[in-house]
């Protein structure tokens, strides 16, 4: 039980990940689901950076007068690549949401399922 207090950083990252997963599962609006995906991604980045942290550590810069324990440089590099991939995913998903809105006139999941169940696309503006 004492571990719960010392590992509070990891537990906060887990809670944020679960909040993002809840948003993706329950909310019907596609934009809200995309916000939930972004929260999940940033929670994973927070977890990865925290594994490389050292108490009273300095950033991993080997200047002439730097000393003491350094924070680990490898998690920072992984998270930088991850942030770029997250931006790419968000941009492509937003383009698809705009296209869905133009084709079907709505971005609520229940109404989209009703559209495809009825078999034709009542569209808004098409071409």
């Amino acid at each position, binding site marked *: 039980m004492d571990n719960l207090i010392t590992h509070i950083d990891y*537990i906060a990252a*887990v809670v944020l990940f679960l909040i993002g997963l809840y948003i993706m599962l329950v909310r019907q609006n596609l934009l809200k689901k995309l916000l939930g995906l972004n929260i999940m991604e940033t929670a994973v980045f927070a977890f990865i950076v925290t594994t490389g942290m050292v108490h009273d*550590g300095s950033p991993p*810069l*080997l200047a002439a007068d730097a000393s003491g324990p350094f924070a680990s440089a490898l998690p920072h590099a992984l998270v930088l690549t991850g942030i770029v991939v997250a931006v790419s*995913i968000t941009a492509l998903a937003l*383009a698809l949401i705009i296209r869905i809105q133009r084709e079907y006139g709505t971005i609520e999941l229940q109404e989209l399922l009703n559209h495809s169940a009825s078999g034709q696309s009542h569209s808004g503006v098409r071409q």
Partner: protein
Amino acid sequence: MRSWLAIVLMVVLGVLMIIAVIQLPQPGSPDAPAQTHVSAYYVEGGKELGGAENLVTAVLLNFRALDTFGEVVVIFSALVAVLAVAAAVAGTGPAGITRTAAETESVEVSPLVAFMVRLLAPFIATFAVFVMLKGHVLPGGGFQGGAVLGAMLILLALFAHRPKPSRFGHPAGLFWLRATGVLAFVLVGLLGLAMTGWMFAMPHDPLAREAMMIALELGIGIGGAAVLIGLFRALADG
């Protein structure tokens, strides 16, 4: 999915993940295996093998250059995919929040905001180029400067209405500018192949190594900024 079902799933997953996470070494302890084995290797060998004082840049551009190449290709293909998806529909206006659709209200740009954006833009651009060029000594690097430069270009496109769409988006020249990241990486990789016999490897001569690193960072930065403003334009106009 029903709300109560999702909450039950969250509680079950939460208990499992917390049990797994508690057994890691305490965050911040300096004698965890991640600190003593992996991090110590990078700290000791970073400056001679890596070639940069900023260890994160040394890891990104030298030790793990293949991953950074993958990242640059990912963001470029995201731009290509967005351009393929965004169909050209009628009613495209200048890039901004004013739209002709009936469901949104149009926002007027206040002249104070436009003036401040135009005043601050050269300083932001200078800072972005500084962060890009000094990436191997100070915190910063390729994509950091590219993100700041891209954000400045988006601000200009939103508020100052400065570039007319036809003049800024000349398709032929801008296409090569957006591909700068991938092209710079491939050229520097082939140069490394010619010099040392391994792709993406850097030679041991410190001057050549620093020149290749700066070329890579400038390529990633300018390519990243062009891709970000291209994404914004594709979403706003299409």
